[in-house]
């Protein structure tokens, strides 16, 4: 497929996503149980951005998500009867809110809020993924995003040993800032585009982007674009379609999205489409998957590609959904 003629194959992608559910007796379906709820979130959000959210059976999705909710501890698991985890909890809430079905699913959101809050070790400014967990900027983003989506951000104002939870979070993120202006998953860990997104978006939600060295970090992010137009996650690593999400969303929140060469990135994303089976892969020629399909479509959305709904760079959900909740933050899309 030549660069100039490539187009988004939206119908194929919708077909690809819908067909994923027909693969239930395959081994790979069973091996990804621990990602199932995330997978449905990636599917729902892709379809929503492609304007085809009706392609999946809404009530079946809601019932499934409801079955993943653990009413005793308040979290969601990736699959019914698995252990709850912060990653699947955010996905569960994102799916239900996108479908405007939190009440319909009979989820007690105050329990979800309590589940999230107890994943912060006392006196710490980070959240863990589950009760066995480790600190991670990613899990901290999941916690803050979930609380915000549930309208419970004010719970972070609670004071503990003299400082609010929010202040502890800000000081933890401050400690995580690296010499290149970026963020790793922990204090001192190598800057990584994915972790940069989680830190920037979390700080955007709690209105504390002021601690970020905006120009420094944005420069590091725009350095991620390689000659073929794709973006990588770290210097000298291979370009990958999913960084179209991680890098662009952070740049959008920092109002520096125009530092990316838009046309080159669009052709890179389009070249990673599977022309036969649909879906988008990590890079041209590889097998497509729903994760890279979402992040490819979301990247195109931020770049202003025609006939794709706008995605919110803070929450990775449709802009219209975030506007309905009144949670829209300041950012720039192309």
């Amino acid at each position, binding site marked *: 497929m030549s660069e100039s003629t490539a187009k988004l194959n939206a119908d194929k992608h919708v077909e690809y996503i819908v067909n994923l559910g027909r693969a239930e007796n395959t081994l790979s379906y069973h091996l990804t149980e621990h990602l199932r709820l995330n997978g449905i979130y990636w599917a729902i959000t892709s379809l929503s951005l492609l304007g085809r959210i009706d392609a999946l059976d809404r009530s079946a999705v809601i*019932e499934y998500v409801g079955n993943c909710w653990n009413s005793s501890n308040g979290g969601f698991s990736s699959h019914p009867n698995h252990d709850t985890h912060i990653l699947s909890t955010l996905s569960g809430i994102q799916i239900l809110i996108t479908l405007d079905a939190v009440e319909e699913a009979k989820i007690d959101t105050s329990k979800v809020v309590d589940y999230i809050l107890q994943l912060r070790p006392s006196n710490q400014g980070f959240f863990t993924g589950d009760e066995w967990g480790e600190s991670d900027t990613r899990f901290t983003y999941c916690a803050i995003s979930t609380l915000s989506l549930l309208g419970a951000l004010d719970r972070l104002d609670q004071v503990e040993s003299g400082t609010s939870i929010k202040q502890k979070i800000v000081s933890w993120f401050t400690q995580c800032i690296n010499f*290149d202006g970026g963020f790793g998953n922990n204090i001192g860990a190598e800057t990584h585009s994915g972790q940069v997104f989680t830190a920037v978006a979390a700080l955007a939600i709690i209105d504390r982007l002021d601690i970020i060295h905006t120009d420094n970090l944005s420069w590091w992010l725009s350095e991620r674009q390689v000659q073929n137009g794709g973006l990588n996650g770290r210097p000298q690593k291979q370009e990958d379609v999913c960084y179209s999400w991680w890098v662009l969303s952070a740049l959008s929140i920092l109002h520096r999205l125009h*530092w990316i060469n838009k046309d080159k990135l669009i052709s890179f994303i389009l070249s990673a489409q599977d022309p036969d089976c649909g879906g988008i892969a990590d890079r041209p020629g590889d097998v497509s998957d729903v994760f890279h399909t979402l992040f490819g479509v979301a990247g195109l959305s931020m770049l202003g590609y025609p006939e794709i709904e706008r995605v919110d760079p803070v929450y990775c959900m449709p802009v219209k959904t975030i506007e309905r909740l009144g949670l829209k933050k300041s950012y720039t899309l192309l």
Partner: protein
Amino acid sequence: MLYAERDDFKDLIPIPQDEGPSPLAPINYSQKCNPHRDAMDMFRAVVDINEKSERALGLTEDIIRMNAGHYTVWHYRTTILVELGLDLQSELKLMDELSTEFLKSYQVWHHRRLCVGLLATTTSPFADKNCPAAVTISSTPQTSSPPPPLPSSIDLARYELQFIANLFHATEDPKNYHTWVYRQWILTYFDKLFQDQDRHHELEFIESLINDDIYNNSVWSHRFFCLFKLGWLHTSLEAEIEYVLIKIGIAPSNMSSWNYLRGILKVNRKGLNQQRVLQFSETLVKAKSASDDMNPPLPALEWLADAALEDKNPIATKHYLTLKDLDPIRRHYWTWKSHLALSA
């Protein structure tokens, strides 16, 4: 042999997954032999009666080998180990094998960290293979801040560092994120136990990785972590700058070493206008510009531009416009910088 047919599990009735309503399509329940499903059905039977036993431990290992990302199974495994007070050193040996096989699995490293945290805080010396660690664990382990390691665990820490070094070599993947995060956890957690020889050893390790691949950003990041986060720098800052310049001389367009150089100046509250670095950059730019088929190394030119901007020297604008020509993919950034320089 399937678990459903095994003699040693015949007292248990496998529990099939209740798929519930399918969100995506009607269920097409395959009766074909599926070892993962078979093991999971037996796992549900084990969890159902909350059995903590050696055979349950073996079952979790089987499932993990088929699916290393299944954190519910990992959790159950940890609980069995702890409740039965099993030998965590043999668990660590198993992790040696599994970390190599499932290098990119978050769970493998997470489990390893739990084991090491437990081993380091128990009294059984690491070398004593006959004495299983007697461990107690609360229902909500605060692994984020485990108690400090016992002095006797220094050998464990050294073992871990050596293991990772070997692993980088064996897997030829010295950029694996989880592994680096784990190594930094070891260095932080055991920091007070380490002696000069250990720090010296770590710096030698870093040096060897930089020599293997000077573009490995993870190693540069790790060097910063050791010297400036853990505070191991024992030479002068000037000596460290000289060190970086030598490395930049070998690979003048290497963003990792240039970023590192900016980082160590910033953390020491120094600007870019270091005579030594300016001279060095100018020489690089001139040498390359002299031969017509070669562009000057962009980071060297960028350094000169940013240093000039810092000084409000108008030459900055000219440098940025050159950079815009040489690096068109980022032309909007360079244009913005040139405007900044004009208005400075």
